[in-house]
């Protein structure tokens, strides 16, 4: 009986080590190619790729990230599209990061869209004011809850991609904070709102 237990422990340990060693190398299906869906040019919209800051490169290590600078009806906005590749933990809760960097949230509200909702947040740090919009999307629904994002990505990895496609974090920051309401600007860019 004792020997059975001993071998049982060995079996459990070996299975656990094999699973946790192999898992990070398993390619999970359902990675969506979002960059094709968001044009660089549209009516009243023109954009270009911009490089990531070194801190962003470090932060998004293990994720696919694209940063674009758009002029939307004359207002400059930075759009960051990020999705986890090998490291799901590279995709953070934007509000957690901003709070950690010393920004104070003045106002936050959710805006309903056809596919779900996105969050608009006004931030203040010392004398600097800015506004951001963000949402997660797996191509079917748009949502703002990081808990739901963790749950969806967790389930997706456990089912080897069968549960859903890999969600993206879409993050928009206005460059000129007081120029115009970010919601108004986003309305000029329906392709972005559809992501």
């Amino acid at each position, binding site marked *: 009986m004792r020997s059975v237990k001993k071998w049982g422990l060995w079996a459990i340990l070996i299975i656990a080590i094999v699973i*946790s060693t192999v898992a990070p190398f398993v390619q999970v299906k359902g990675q969506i190619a979002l960059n094709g869906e968001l044009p660089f040019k549209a009516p009243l919209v023109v954009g270009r790729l911009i490089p990531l800051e070194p801190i962003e490169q470090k932060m998004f290590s293990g994720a696919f990230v694209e940063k674009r600078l758009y002029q939307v009806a004359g207002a400059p906005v930075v759009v960051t599209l990020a999705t986890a590749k090998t490291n799901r933990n590279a995709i953070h809760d934007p509000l957690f990061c901003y709070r950690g960097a010393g920004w104070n949230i003045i106002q936050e509200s959710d805006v309903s869209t056809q596919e779900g909702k996105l969050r608009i947040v006004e931030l203040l740090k010392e004398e600097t004011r800015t506004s951001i919009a963000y949402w997660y999307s797996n191509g079917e629904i748009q949502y703002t809850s990081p808990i739901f994002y963790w749950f969806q990505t967790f389930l997706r990895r456990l089912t080897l991609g069968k549960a859903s496609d890999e969600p993206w974090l879409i993050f928009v920051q206005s460059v000129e904070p007081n120029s115009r309401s970010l919601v108004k600007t986003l309305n000029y860019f329906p392709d972005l709102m559809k992501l």
Partner: protein
Amino acid sequence: MKRIYFPLPVLISLPWAIWLARGLPASWQNAPFDQHSEWVFAFWLTGCFWMIWERPHFDSITWSVALAAQCLGVVGQLNILIYLGLALMLMSLTGIQIYIRVIWIGTALFWMPVIGWLFKTMGADTVVWIRFAGLLVAVFILTAWQWTQQTERTHAIS
């Protein structure tokens, strides 16, 4: 004091569990909401080793659950399960009262990044105080437990 020898797979699993939680130090160093968590962790770990030293006992079910939690954490890339697995694994090596083990696993949350996320609206400085409040709870539990132990011993002698 009764000494027990833990099975070899268990002794191997412990460094493995620590290896899986290797992201923690970087988080403590870089994340503003995780400042000083290493002190909470160091104290929590000392408490674990103390309990193991005082009442060594191997609980194969808790150990298996710990490994399962860590596997799920690695496959699903959910760090909290990896950290919880580590806490469970350490608690599988002691035979102290179940309620103390449960509370001790609960206090493990105070060195995990999740506390920073949960209390993010309060600001990074307040989160440090919350972590140390958790540490105080842990100190209280250990003291109460030690007191119970001493009382038991005194009764046994008399």
